[in-house]
């Protein structure tokens, strides 16, 4: 009658419980592996870079001598790049999101746009670099300018902004639309006075996170030819420029040990900027999530 051998079940039970405990610990180790790596990485960078980080480092231009090297031009270049990239990518990204969420009919063209955007998100950044180099730098003759860099970066982060803006718009309850339409508002008025104000914080959060991706991106800018050794500040959007990650890359590539320490100092500056941007994003996100 009994097919299940209770004896076997009992003897196996202990083994199963032990392996549950062991594996639980292993999984836990895997989960905190990231914390360990992050700690080691930060410890290394701060212990090496902090001694080099002083006012002179922030206000000097690049130099052949490690003790005189500074990142003034790189900070200025990164700021310029962000200032130009932000409006371009936000207008394009939010515009695309509004089109997809508010106007697009469910047809083949719309599905194509969606698929296209999700595939663009997976294109390696070097390929965007090739696009920028060919189209903006050469074809449109923008040269190795901030404008060429910003346009390349805008296209690179476009998919991120589109997706996060879509989510922000989708989070608006349908009754908000109904309330607006019921008062005789047109579609554009509804978007302008109801949708955008309600979604703006969510859009900004996604935008800042996308820009923080752009500020750390190196490869595409290397390829469109951002220079690593410039001793002047950019004057306008057609100026040549360098950015923080490129400066760091340049110092990392030098054989002299001292330049690695300078690179650490540069990384600290880059990480501090990233932390600041992310805190703003988190702050806005917390504010945003309290609505509705």
């Amino acid at each position, binding site marked *: 009658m009994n097919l299940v051998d209770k004896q076997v079940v009992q003897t196996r039970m202990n083994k*199963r419980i032990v*392996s*549950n405990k062991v594996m*639980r610990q*292993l*999984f836990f*180790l*895997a*989960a*905190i*592996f*990231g914390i360990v*790596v*992050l700690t080691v*990485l930060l410890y*290394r*960078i701060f212990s090496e870079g902090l001694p080099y980080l002083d006012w002179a480092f922030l206000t000097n231009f690049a130099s052949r001598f490690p003790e005189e090297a500074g990142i003034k031009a790189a900070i200025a270049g990164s700021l310029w790049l962000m200032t130009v990239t932000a409006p371009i990518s936000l*207008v394009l990204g*939010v*515009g*695309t999101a*509004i*089109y*997809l969420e*508010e106007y*697009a009919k469910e047809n083949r063209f719309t599905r194509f746009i969606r698929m*296209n955007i*999700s*595939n663009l998100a*997976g*294109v*390696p*950044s*070097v*390929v*965007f*670099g*090739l*696009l920028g180099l060919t*189209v903006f730098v050469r074809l449109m003759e923008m040269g190795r300018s901030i404008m060429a860099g910003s346009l390349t970066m805008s296209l690179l982060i476009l*998919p991120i902004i589109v997706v996060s803006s879509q989510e922000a718009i989708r989070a608006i309850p349908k009754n908000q639309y109904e309330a607006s339409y019921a008062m005789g508002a047109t579609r*554009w008025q509804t978007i302008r006075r109801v949708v955008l104000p309600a979604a703006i914080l969510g859009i900004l959060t996604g935008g800042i996170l996308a820009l*923080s*991706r752009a500020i*750390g*991106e*190196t*490869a595409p800018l*290397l*390829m469109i030819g951002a220079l690593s050794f410039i001793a002047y500040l950019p004057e306008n959007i057609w100026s040549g420029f360098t950015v923080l*990650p490129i400066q*760091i*890359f340049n110092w*990392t590539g030098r054989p002299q040990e001292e330049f*690695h320490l300078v690179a*650490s100092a540069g*990384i600290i500056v*880059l*990480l501090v900027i*990233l932390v600041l941007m992310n805190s703003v994003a988190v702050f806005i996100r917390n504010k945003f999530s309290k609505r509705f």
Partner: protein
Amino acid sequence: MVVNVRNMMKNKKSNEFLLRFLEKAAPAFFLLCAVISILTTIGIVLTLVVETITFFNRVPFMEFITGTKWWPFGKNASYGILPLISGTLLITVVAMMVAIPVGLASAIYLSEFASFRVRKVVKPILEVLAGIPTIVYGFFALTFVTPMLQVVISDLPIFNALSPGIVVGIMIIPMIASLSEDAMSSVPSTIREGAFAMGSTRLEVALKVVVPAALSGIIASFVLGVSRAIGETMIVSVAAGSTPKLTTDVTDSIQTMTGYIVQVTLGDASYGSTTYYSIYAVGMTLFVFTLLMNLLSQFISRRFKEDY
């Protein structure tokens, strides 16, 4: 004084023309924005195709895809892409050997074992790891991981495939962990209860019920990870070296497709030279590889999606 709202609204209608214009112009503008994303794709494809054709006018296609020597400089230039592909695959394999076990194990821990408090600490840290610029990872690989490995493997050269491979793996862990965890979290808890009620341990619930049920999402995250590893640039540019080699030895100095493209754009390959066009051919190969991986990932997660 009586305020007549109706009259006020009527008077306002004077700028009806503008309103009507905006009503028509707005969708046109937004459509234009959406079209830009398509133009970007077209731009990428056209750029790659046109310049690659120029390249193949000078270098035979067969030499490119079957050649085992990549030496794009000087008189005896040779353009066989296999060494660059093998370098890329070597990095990818090492990276996935790190990222898959650690990423999946983290996902299982976070989804099936972790208390609410642990999850609240670990998940943001994974997000931070995902947000660190790749150049910082590259610096970490060259100045920390490689010297550490040299302690174990004494004759390991400064530039090798192992160190950047491991670091690329570390970089991908957060992505695999969070996508796999999403897939596992979407398995309904009633199914878990069914397994618990029969005396399963948490481990058995995770491995025999939840992971199989979420398998499509998990595999899709692996494939996406492969795509990221193939396309990763700065870590390998900094730490893998620049000597294209057809090898399976991870301690060798190698070069990846991305590493080559960066090397050429940094150098002084003159515009119009064969070397210059070769980066487009390599870029095209890279683009096709990652595109296939991304499409495969989307296909897996859509085709094998469980409807609970």
